C-alpha cells in the first residue's frame, strides 16, 4: 500500500511542481527525491512497516513477491531517472507532467503486483496504459510519435475491450471478481471460464507484447521518444508480466494443464517472431523493440512452467533484462543516428561507452557471467523442471542463438568496423552510472547469490 499511495501522491506533487517551479533542475531533483522515497517506503513495507493501514476489502493483497518486484521496478526507475533525466527534458515542455505520469504508472505497477480482484487488475492496467499513450505521443510535432501514440491507443483500447469481455465471462461463471473465489473449483475448465480465460490471456499477451498480439510493439517503441521507449520496454513490461503471472498463477493455477499448450504456443510464436524479425532491422532502436518482444518470449517461460523457479526467474529476469536495456537506450538516446552504421567505430572514440554497451548486449544475449545468463538459465530450468514443454526449450535456445546475431551486430559495428562515431554528449556522471550498471550486471551474473538470497528469503 505504501508504494501505491506515495506514488499517487508524488505524482500529484510532480504535477504541481511544474506549475510552481520553472526550474527544470528542481523538478528533476524532486523526482529523484520522490523515487528514493518510494523505494524506501516500499522497502519498509517489505520489512513489515505499513504506513497506511487500509482495509482493502480483499481488493489488494500485498505479498513479498509483489513487494520485491516493486522494489526492483522502483529501483530500476530510479536508475532510469538518473540516467535519462536530462534527455526527458528534450522531449517537450511538460517535463513535470512526464514525471507525474511516470509516477502514476508506478502506482499502476504497484497495484498490478498486488491486486486480488479482477477489478483492481483492470484499473491497474488502465492506470499503466493511459499515461503510456500520452508519453508515446509526447513528442507532439514528431509525426512518428503521433502515429505511434494513436496506434498504441487504438489497439490498447481494443485489447481493453477484449479483456473486459474476458472478465465479464469469468464473472458470469464464478459470480465474483475476487481471485480467491475464481480459484475455487474442481480443476475442470468449464466453457465460460475457458472463454474468459482465453480472452484475458490474449489481452495480457497484448500488453506484454507477446505474439501474435505484439504488432503494436515495434511501431510504438520505434515511434515513441526514445527515453520513454526505454521505460516502456523495461519496467512497464515487467510490471505487466507480474500481473500476468499473478492472475494466471493465482486464479487459474489449478487449470494450468488446460492452458499450458496455448501459452506455450504463444511463447514459441513470440520467440520466433521477435528474434526473426530483429535480424533484418537497420535501426538499433527498432531492433531493440523486436528484441524486447524476444525477451518477453523468454519471460513467458515462467508462465508456461508456472513453478517456483519460474517466478523467481521472472524477478531475476526483470532485473537482468531491464538494467541492460535501460543502459543501452540511455546511450542510444544521445545518438543522432540510430542505424547500426551509427555505431561504427564507437569503440575508438568512446571506449568506455562501447565497453559498457558490449556488456549490456552480452547480457541481453545471455552470455555467462552476465545477469542475462542467469535469467535465461532460470527460465530454461523452470521449463525443463515443468517437463512438458521440451520442444519449447529447444525453440528457446535456437532463438537465443539467433539473438546473438543481432546483438553482436552492434558489437561488431562498435569494435570491428571503421567509422566516424557520432559526437556523443556524455557527462562523467552519466558514464559513471553506466559503468556502475555494467558492473552490477556482471556482479549479479557472477554472484547471483545476493539476489537469490533475497528471493529465497521472501519465498520461504
Amino acid at each position, binding site marked *: 500500500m505504501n508504494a501505491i499511495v506515495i506514488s499517487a501522491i508524488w505524482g500529484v506533487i510532480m504535477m504541481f511542481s511544474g506549475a510552481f517551479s520553472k526550474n527544470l533542475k528542481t523538478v528533476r531533483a524532486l523526482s529523484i527525491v520522490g523515487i528514493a522515497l518510494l523505494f524506501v517506503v516500499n522497502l519498509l513495507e517489505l520489512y513489515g512497516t505499513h504506513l497506511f493501514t487500509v482495509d482493502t476489502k480483499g481488493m489488494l493483497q500485498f505479498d513479498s513477491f509483489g513487494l520485491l518486484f516493486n522494489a526492483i521496478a522502483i529501483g530500476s526507475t530510479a536508475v532510469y531517472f538518473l540516467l535519462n533525466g536530462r534527455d526527458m527534458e528534450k522531449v517537450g515542455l511538460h517535463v513535470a507532467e512526464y514525471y507525474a505520469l511516470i509516477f502514476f504508472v508506478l502506482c499502476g505497477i504497484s497495484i498490478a503486483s498486488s491486486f486480488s480482484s479482477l477489478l483492481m487488475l483492470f484499473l491497474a492496467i488502465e492506470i499503466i496504459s493511459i499515461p503510456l499513450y500520452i508519453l508515446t505521443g509526447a513528442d507532439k510535432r514528431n509525426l512518428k510519435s503521433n502515429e505511434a501514440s494513436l496506434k498504441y491507443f487504438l489497439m490498447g483500447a481494443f485489447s481493453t475491450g477484449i479483456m473486459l469481455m474476458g472478465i465479464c465471462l469469468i464473472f458470469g461463471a464464478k459470480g465474483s471478481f475476487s481471485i480467491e473465489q475464481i480459484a475455487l473449483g474442481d480443476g475442470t475448465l468449464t466453457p465460460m471460464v475457458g472463454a474468459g480465460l482465453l480472452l484475458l490471456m490474449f489481452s495480457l499477451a497484448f500488453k506484454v507484447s507477446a505474439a501474435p498480439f505484439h504488432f503494436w510493439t515495434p511501431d510504438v517503441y520505434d515511434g515513441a521518444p526514445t527515453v520513454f521507449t526505454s521505460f516502456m520496454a523495461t519496467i512497464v513490461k515487467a510490471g505487466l508480466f507480474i500481473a500476468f503471472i499473478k492472475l494466471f498463477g493465482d486464479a487459474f493455477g489449478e487449470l494450468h494443464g488446460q492452458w499450458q499448450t496455448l501459452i506455450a504456443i504463444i511463447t514459441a510464436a513470440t520467440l520466433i517472431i521477435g528474434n526473426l524479425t530483429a535480424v533484418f532491422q537497420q535501426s538499433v532502436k527498432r531492433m531493440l523493440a523486436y528484441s524486447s518482444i524476444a525477451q518477453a518470449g523468454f519471460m513467458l517461460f515462467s508462465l508456461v512452467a508456472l513453478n517456483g523457479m519460474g517466478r523467481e526467474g521472472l524477478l531475476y529476469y526483470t532485473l537482468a533484462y531491464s538494467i541492460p536495456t535501460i543502459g543501452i537506450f540511455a546511450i542510444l538516446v544521445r545518438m543522432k543516428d540510430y542505424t547500426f552504421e551509427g555505431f561504427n567505430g564507437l569503440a575508438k572514440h568512446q571506449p568506455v561507452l562501447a565497453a559498457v554497451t558490449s556488456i549490456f548486449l*552480452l547480457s541481453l544475449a545471455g*552470455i*555467462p*557471467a552476465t545477469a542475462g*545468463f542467469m535469467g535465461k*538459465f532460470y527460465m*530454461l*530450468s523452470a521449463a*525443463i*523442471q515443468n517437463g512438458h514443454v521440451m520442444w519449447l*526449450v*529447444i525453440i528457446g*535456445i*535456437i532463438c*537465443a*542463438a539467433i539473438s*546473438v*546475431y543481432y546483438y*553482436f551486430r552492434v558489437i*561488431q559495428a562498435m*569494435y*570491428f*568496423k571503421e567509422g566516424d562515431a557520432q559526437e556523443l554528449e556524455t557527462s562523467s556522471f552519466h558514464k559513471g552510472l553506466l559503468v556502475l550498471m555494467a558492473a552490477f550486471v556482471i556482479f549479479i551474473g557472477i*554472484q*547471483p*547469490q545476493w539476489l*537469490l*538470497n533475497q528471493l*529465497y528469503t521472501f519465498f520461504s
Partner: protein
Amino acid sequence: MIPVLLIVIPLLSGLATFLIKQEKGAKTWSLLASLITLVVSVIGITMVKDKAALSANLEWLPMLGSSFSVTLDGMGQILCLLTAVAFPMIFLATWNASYKNAKSFYALMLLGQAGLMGAFLAHDALLFYFFWELALIPAYFLCSQWGGERRIAVTMKFFIYTFVGSLFMLIGIIYVYFHAGQNFSIESFYSAALSPKEQNWLFWLFFVAFAIKMPIFPLHTWQPDTYEQSPTAVTMVLSGVMVKMGLLGVIRWLAPVLPMATWQNGDTVGLLCVIGMIYASILAIQQDDLKRLIAYSSIAHVGLMCLAIFVTSEKGMQGVMIQMFNHGINVIGLWIVVELIERQFGTRKISELGGLAQKAPALAILLVVVSLANVALPLTNAFIGEFLLFTGVFTSTVSKMGPVFTAVAGLSIILSAVYTLNMIQRVFFGNTNQLTASAHDIRSNEKIVLGILVVAILVVGVYPKPFLELTQGTVEAIMSKMITKHPI
C-alpha cells in the same frame, strides 16, 4: 588452492593488462603472468600426493546446488599444463609481431586462458558451463578484431555455431540437474538416475556441443574458416587448447554421466569420427592455404581422439589423455611456423612459397620435426598417443567395429603423410622464387620457442611414462564409471 590460482592469475593479470598503455609493457606483463601460471601449474603437477592442495570447493550458489568446485585431477593436470605451456610459447613466438591496441589483445588472451583453465578444472556442471562460454568470448573478440579480411562474418558463424551447441548442452545440464537431486556437482551428476531413453536424447544434446567444439564431421565447417581468418596467435589457442575442451567435455561430462547412451551410440559416433578423419585428410591434401591445411589435419587428429573415447577402452582413453597434450604442442608448433612464414612473406599460400630450406634452414628443420610429430612418427610424442589410440580402438571390447574402424582410420596415417610431406616439399624444398629469394632465417627467440617444442616432442616421444602415470588415475576412475553403470 592451486586450481584457484590457475584461474585467478590469468584472470586478474588479464584485467590488469587492459590498463597498461605501452605495447611493450603489455607484452612483457602478459608473458610474465603466463610464466607465473606455468610455474603454478608445474607445481600442481608435482603435488600429486597432496589432494587437498589440488582441489578447492568454495561456496558459490548453494541455493541452486552449485559450488565453485575446481579440482586438478590427472586430466586437469595435463590440460592445464598444456594451457600453461601454450600461452608463454605463443607470446614468445609472436613477440616480434605487432598488434594494434596491443593491451586489449594481450588482455583478452589472458582472459581466454582463464576461461580455458576454468573449463578444464571445473567439477561442477554449472561452473563448467560458465567457463566453457567464457573461454569463447575472448576468442570471439580476438578473432573479430585482429583477424583476416572475412573475419567478421566468419567469427560470427563460429560464435553462433558453438553457442548453439553450448545451449544444447545447457539444456542437457539442466535436465540432468533435476534428476541429480538439484545439484550440479560432478558426483551427483555421475549418480543421476536417468532411464536409458532419457540418456539417449540427452546424449545428443551434450554431444552436439562437444562435437562442434572438437569439431567432428559434419559439424566442422566453422573451423577451417575460423582458423584461416584468426590471427595466428589465436588460432594456436583455438586449435591447440580450446579444441581439448570438447574432448574433456566428452570424457568428463558425457561418457561417465550417460554411460549407457555412450555405449549405445558409440559406434554411430565412431563412424562419424572415422568418416571425418578420412574426409578431412583428403581435403587437407587439396588445400593451398597453410592454415586450412593444418585446420583439416587437426580435424582428422581430433576425430581419432574422439573415436578412441567412444569405443570405451582403457588404452584408448590413456591415449586420448596424452594425445590431447601432444596434439596441442604439435599443432602450436605448426602454427608458429605458419605465423613466421606469414609474417615474413605476407602469404600463406603454399603455391606462392618454395625453397625456404635454402634460406631458412633452422626454420625448415624445426618445421620438419614438428611435421613429423604431426604424422606421428615414432619417437615423437604423437606416436605414443596415436599408438595407444589405435590400439585402444582395435582392442576395444565394447565396440564390435574396432578393427574396421582402425583399418579405415589407419588410412589417415597414410594420408597425413601425403599432405604433410606435400606441404614440406612445396614450401621448403625446391627452388626459391621471387618472394622467397630474399628470405631470412628465424630469430633467436623464435628458435628458442620452437626448440623447446621440439625438445618436448622428443622427450614425450621417448619417455612418456610420467605422463601416462599422471593420468592413469583419471582414466581408471572414468573407465570404472563408464563400465560399471552399464546394464550388462
